[in-house]
């Protein structure tokens, strides 16, 4: 069942992506609406380097570093503004990144995209490699999960939550909120870059059209739907979003209505989002369901 493998790989990659956003959105309370830029940086750096003959594993590491550095460079100025303003600053940054990819054709081949991105040497290309890639993506997701759980279950995560709930209080207790936020963004960016490399080497073709606002919204959805500020939330959310997105393909729509398939799918998709937000505003795994209650 290659299709099932494919959907599972997608779900795993999206879990990594969603977990990385959750670190910023859920734990640090930073509304990063430009997260897809780091996903894109990971994908592009990794793809370009491996096209240039760098071994895939080395290219992946460079991609993570590039995403992290960009994250730090963005975070320091963007954190001057807070709340929705930070959101719009990051959103605009992501669009700027996409436009650079679109227009700097000497580097990225612009809208033509980069085809034929190789897989790591030990994974066979194409369909034969899918079980191995699934394993790879699974290990990557588990690694990310363990890393993030360690991070958020630690004094670091606790401090992030303090900052999210009350910045002034955190400052009064000696927390350097800027530094904490920068760290959260860098970690989130590295992990988003990680998801991006996983994506690029799996799908084997990337173009600027893959890194639009739509993608940000999709991953935002995974986080909010699953439950922000929890470890399992984004994972569950990503799996739900990917599987649901594929499941609408199987809706029983009579052939006579094929013309209406896509709008109907869209209506159902949108409707379910609305209903879920109304019935479970804190996601499927709400954060504040703590012990002793």
């Amino acid at each position: 069942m290659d299709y099932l493998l494919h959907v599972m790989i997608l779900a795993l990659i999206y879990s990594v992506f969603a977990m990385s956003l959750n670190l910023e959105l859920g734990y640090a309370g930073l509304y990063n609406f430009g997260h897809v830029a780091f996903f894109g940086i990971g994908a592009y750096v990794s793809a370009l380097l491996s096209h240039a003959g760098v071994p895939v594993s080395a290219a992946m590491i460079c991609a993570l570093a590039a995403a992290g550095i960009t994250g730090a460079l963005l975070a320091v100025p963007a954190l001057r503004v807070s709340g929705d303003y930070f959101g719009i600053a990051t959103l605009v940054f992501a669009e700027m990144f996409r436009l650079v990819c679109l227009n700097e054709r000497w580097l990225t081949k612009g809208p033509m995209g980069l085809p034929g991105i190789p897989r790591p040497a030990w994974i066979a290309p194409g369909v034969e490699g899918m079980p191995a890639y699934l394993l790879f993506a699974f290990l990557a997701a588990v690694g990310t999960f363990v890393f993030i759980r360690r991070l958020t279950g630690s004094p670091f995560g606790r401090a992030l939550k303090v900052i999210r709930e009350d910045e002034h209080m955190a400052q009064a207790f000696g927390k350097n909120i800027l530094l904490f936020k920068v760290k959260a963004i860098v970690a989130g960016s590295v992990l988003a870059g990680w998801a991006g490399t996983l994506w690029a080497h799996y799908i084997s073709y990337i173009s600027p059209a893959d890194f639009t606002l739509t993608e940000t919204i999709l991953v935002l959805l995974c986080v909010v739907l699953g439950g922000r500020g929890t470890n399992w939330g984004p994972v569950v959310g990503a799996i739900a979003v990917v599987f649901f997105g594929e499941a609408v393909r199987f809706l029983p729509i009579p052939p006579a209505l094929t013309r209406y398939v896509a709008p109907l799918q869209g209506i159902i998709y949108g409707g379910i989002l609305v209903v879920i937000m109304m019935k479970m505003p804190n996601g499927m795994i709400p954060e504040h369901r703590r012990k002793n209650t």
Partner: protein
Amino acid sequence: MKKSLGIIICVFLLCAGPLSAAEVKVGSNTPLSGKLSVYGEGFQQAMLLALEEVNAEGGIKGSPMQIVFEDNNSTAAGAVSAIQKLITVDKLPLLFGPAASSNFLAVCPIAQQNKTILIAAESAAAEISKCGSFVFRVFPSDALQGIGVAELTQTLKYDQVVLTYINNDWGVGLAEIFKKKFTAAGGKILDEFAHDEGKTDYRSEVLRIRKSNAKAVVNLTYIKEGATVLKQAYETGLKVQWLMGSASKSPKLVELAGEAAEGVIGTYPTFSQETPQYKAFKAAWEKKYPDKKIPVFGEYNYDMVKLTAKALRMAKSMAPEDLRKAMIEAGKGYMGVTGDKTFDENGDVGAVYGCWTVKQQAIQDYK
């Protein structure tokens, strides 16, 4: 809760399950949502028209043919998901590919490796020729058209032009081939810039054209963008000769731009509109969709389905190798609405490049 879950599962099984042997199914990976949906709907209508005719003619060896449409959201990721589903869930041996070249390039390795026939009706990028032995297209490669536009520009004796193109895979690919050919032949490009896809305001771009004082503008773009540019240029009284590509050759362009489209000259992979095939197609279209104009590339989509039906009838079995041979065999000398569909060794078809122009609010051949 359990009950409703059960119902959902049943529903899924019902719609995934019924592979009734009575039908011959092929898949289609079509942009029904997202930014290409403007075109996708037309493709789908043309395919459905052809399908209707195939089944009226008795289907495939007595069983009706059916097309399973999968939406690809106009994105590469969507196209990959859709093709994986069509190949492994529906187990279809033959698929119609996604529209944009970038999306097509994303899925063609998957088809090649699964030994699934993949046919393109409108993806023009030159690179598609390299996709592999299971990939066919009934639409000619860009490489031919870029040269065509350059030659047209020179025959019209414009040796200084402004080049503008839509900033996507089609526009950029075509522009690069045009530029190479045009400058090699001694032409000069006064100003060159990409314009964004899907904008409503190109007045400043038009102003930039005006500033260059060029007599002719090569504008390789889509319908919507093309119409907007033409209209806004007209409003500012800009008088230049517009030279355009195939993607904007549509009655819709004239409908949207009105008088501003008058006198535009463009190239397109031509086919005669006098052939009986074309006339039959046109009549059938007008009968089925009385209030719809023939969409851009509609003829190719129609041909693709008809040719596929012919190949399916000829195929010894539904095995990949048999289908591949049948495709090549069916193409040989096949005269469709859009002309000769004989496949070369890359699965490409040749093309005659003609010119179109807009005269009295109608698209006509330019001679």
